[in-house]
């Protein structure tokens, strides 16, 4: 009898938990969608913020552009470093100790809070190197943030390449570089691009690293990589925190989520194309 009671309580608990997860997700998306849909318009997406205080009217075009550019720079910076490191660890490094050390270091990097990276970016890039609050400072800082994410996935992809196929290539007397370039990369390109895309989404949503390194409350579409920018997550924060415009805030949040959704769909499509290819 006691067992029956315990069993029922148990079941209630686990069903409730799982349902709660569903409910939360659905609620969050509906909340943003319903409240924000009304604000989205041609004007909102493509014009500059206006009004007094700034942002209470007009649109968020510079923020959209700023976010996309930041994401681009972060991805380029991080991919070059991450792919190189992955190639080194899988194809050039023969010492187990070195491998373990590098893995440990990268794992530590992924645990550093994004605000600390922002601090680092601020003191080293903005101040020491004198780059100022700019696209490049923010882009590099974001790049450092997503570097471990990309590196881990690219390394995994490279390791999973069938070793016997790689051996067959060496057996033909073909060099390592040629093998990498003509055989391995074509095999891995989908996974690598997918990882970079997802990392880009991750970078786009981050506000903490760019508060100190790139984002300003109001700026035009950047003219060079040394200009400061507006960015969607930061703009959302400002609109809400400064109480400028709730309506525009909902719109900004929705736009941000939609762009992230598109990025995730692109990544899923890439994975789908890969399956087709096989």
């Amino acid at each position, binding site marked *: 009898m006691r067992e029956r009671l315990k069993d029922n309580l148990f079941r209630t608990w686990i069903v409730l938990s799982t349902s709660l997860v569903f409910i939360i997700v659905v609620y969050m998306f509906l909340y943003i969608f319903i409240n924000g849909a009304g604000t989205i318009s041609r004007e909102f997406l493509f014009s500059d913020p206006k009004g007094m205080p700034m942002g209470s009217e007009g649109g968020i075009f510079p923020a959209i552009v700023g976010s996309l550019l930041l994401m681009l720079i972060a991805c380029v910076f991080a991919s070059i470093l991450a792919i190189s490191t992955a190639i080194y660890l899988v194809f050039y490094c023969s010492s187990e100790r070195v491998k373990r050390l590098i893995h440990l270091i990268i794992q530590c990097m992924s645990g550093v809070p994004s605000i600390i990276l922002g*601090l680092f970016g601020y003191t080293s890039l903005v101040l020491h190197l004198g780059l100022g609050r700019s696209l490049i400072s923010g882009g590099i800082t974001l790049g450092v943030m997503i570097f471990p994410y990309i590196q881990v996935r690219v390394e995994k992809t490279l390791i999973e390449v069938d070793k016997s196929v790689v051996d067959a290539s060496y057996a033909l007397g073909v060099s390592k570089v040629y093998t990498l370039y003509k055989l391995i990369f074509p095999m891995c390109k989908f996974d690598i691009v997918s990882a970079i895309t997802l990392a880009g989404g991750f970078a786009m949503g981050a506000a903490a690293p760019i508060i100190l390194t790139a984002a300003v409350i109001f700026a035009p579409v950047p003219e060079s990589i040394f200009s400061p920018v507006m960015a969607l*997550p930061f703009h959302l924060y400002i609109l809400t925190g400064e109480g400028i415009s709730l309506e525009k805030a909902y719109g900004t949040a929705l736009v941000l989520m939609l762009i992230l959704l598109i990025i995730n769909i692109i990544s899923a499509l890439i994975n789908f194309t890969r399956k087709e290819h096989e």
Partner: protein
Amino acid sequence: MRKIREKIFEILIKILTAFSVLILAFVVIFIFKESLTFFKEVSIWKFITGRKWNPLGPPEELSILNIICGTVYVSLVGIAIALPIGIGTAVVLSCYTNENIKRLIRGILDILAGVPSVVYGFIGLLVVVKFFEVNFSFASGESVLSGGIVLSVMLLPFIVSTCDESMEKIYREYSQSSRALGVSKGYMIRNILLPASKRSILASVVLALGRGMGETMAVMMVIGNAPIIPRLLGKTQTIPSLIALEMGMAEVGSLHYHALFASGFVLMIMLLIINGLLYFIKNKMDI
């Protein structure tokens, strides 16, 4: 000709790898350097045990005990809320669902993990904080509790994924023999699976603690940002939000400026201890 190309490529790869690895060293070094300037003026002991944070003065007082407590407190509240939900979901994932539903639930958790921190803060402010203000007529709904609630949603995916894998293994191992004894699934889970999962549950708590303490935006927007002794329903401040808020207004090179770096440094030390704990649990502990 070909040989030269090979060599250049190899050297390039090595340089880029070294550079990437050094960046972490740079991060730590830069933070430490700027903190050191502060610790020359104010002893580290006073810094972490003193209660007054008043950068504007006079007198200028810079101690972060309250803020350290706030950081830990909010995370603990978040874990307290997320843990039961997370374990319950992990149990369902590992013991009650087929492949398709598993993929669905995992997909939903991935979505949760992908929502930007600032969006969580945004919704937290407009929903959670407002809820407290409206229903309980608090003067302000910003509190440790609000922070904990928002944080708990963000921590859910981590807790579930850490527990899910090992629970699945344990379930597969014991479910058949348990069923053969005619015992209900719930009984088996309560008496075999959960106790056997202690290690991963503990690991997930530690992991979540680390993540929670480093969280900036979401928490910052709902806790009120007051560096006072934290109470559950009162305002508080965490180290990440302290840095995010005050860095912009601190004069470069001032003591305040260096104090913010110092608090970042303290945060990193705390996370180091936690990660050490995690490593210990994962590899050395025999529960």
